[in-house]
């Protein structure tokens, strides 16, 4: 039931909405990005970190020419991290394949002790096997965050050997020119990404 129900609902909404949007409605904001503008922009990290299979992955060269959606989190995070991954998974599935193929999602763990390559891979595969997982050493993590101007993750003990890790709540969108002028805070949805990704793909060096 839910499958066809959703289709009928969508069809119904699609049929009725155009009737509403005619006339003198608010001007369209179709070309405005929904992401939050950051000043100064972020520069894409130059670091080479181990990927989930233990192979060195240079963030700059491996993502060359791609829209790179970059996130620092951890897998024992029940709240913001999986939500970003779920929304990105849904967005990439909803976009045309030739648009989605120009996007790389990179997840760097801020908890390398628990997030081994294997743990991180299995967690990312739950969302999308194409999502890149990177496992830095503490030293590499510290240097990368320093270059980015971001806070070093702090642990909070929550008992029974468990701890939470503080981390940036937003996804950083590096355009093709390796510069990120926009970030995507928690609460951003797949629909927001579907709206912004094609626009973000236009950012970067002008031909």
């Amino acid at each position, binding site marked *: 039931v839910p499958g066809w129900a959703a289709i009928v*609902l969508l069809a119904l909404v699609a049929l*009725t909405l155009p009737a509403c949007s005619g006339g003198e409605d608010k001007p369209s904001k179709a070309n405005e990005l929904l992401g939050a503008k950051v000043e100064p922009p972020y520069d894409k990290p130059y670091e080479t970190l181990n990927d989930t299979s233990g192979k060195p992955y240079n963030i700059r060269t491996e993502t060359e020419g791609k829209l790179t959606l970059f996130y620092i989190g951890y897998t024992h995070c029940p*709240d913001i991290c999986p939500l970003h991954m779920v929304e990105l998974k849904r967005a990439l599935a909803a976009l045309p394949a030739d648009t989605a193929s120009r996007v790389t999602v990179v997840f760097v763990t801020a908890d390398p002790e628990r997030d081994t390559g294997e743990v991180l891979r299995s967690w990312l595969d739950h969302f999308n096997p194409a999502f890149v997982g990177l496992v830095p050493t503490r030293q590499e993590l510290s240097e990368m965050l320093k270059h980015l101007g971001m806070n070093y993750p*702090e642990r909070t003990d929550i008992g029974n050997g*468990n701890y939470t890790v503080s981390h940036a709540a937003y996804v950083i969108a590096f355009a093709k020119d390796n510069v990120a002028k926009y970030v995507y805070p928690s*609460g951003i949805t797949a629909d927001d990404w579907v709206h912004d990704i094609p626009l973000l793909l236009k950012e970067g060096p002008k031909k």
Partner: protein
Amino acid sequence: MMVKAYARVAALLFPALLLAIAALVVASCGGDDDNSAAPTRPASTVAASTPAGTAGGLAIIGVSVRATTNDVSAAYFTVKNTGPADRLLKAVADVTANVQLHEVVTTGGTAKMQPVAGLDVPANGQLELKPGGYHVMLLDLKSPLKQGQTVKLELRFEKAGTITVMAPVTD
């Protein structure tokens, strides 16, 4: 059994739901420039308004638990209150003995998650547990939670007592 019952309820509700949405959409066309009522996610909005459990003036709506591949997850819901102020003191789950109430504090773009002793439910108001704010944290899960599963949650309130809800696991 539970799933069957849900499916039947869904099938019964569905025609009504279509009508309700059609009415909403038409209403939003008819109004002057107020498009705020236009439903973007009609199905979930309607489903979420059916309480999963009630006690006193409290009603739990929109409860869900996130699917996970590891040993942590989070439960979200809204507590609607038509009575005096109350407080959520504790949550108990059938999938783990380690359940905590957590808040996420975001300062300057950095999110930090920490346990809290309880969560206030304002009089004639609501307490919302949602991503980026409060959640019930499920720790040390014996096995990962998969979509389609159901988690039994007992929510213990200071005044209203315990409300038991069945929370669907969703992606």
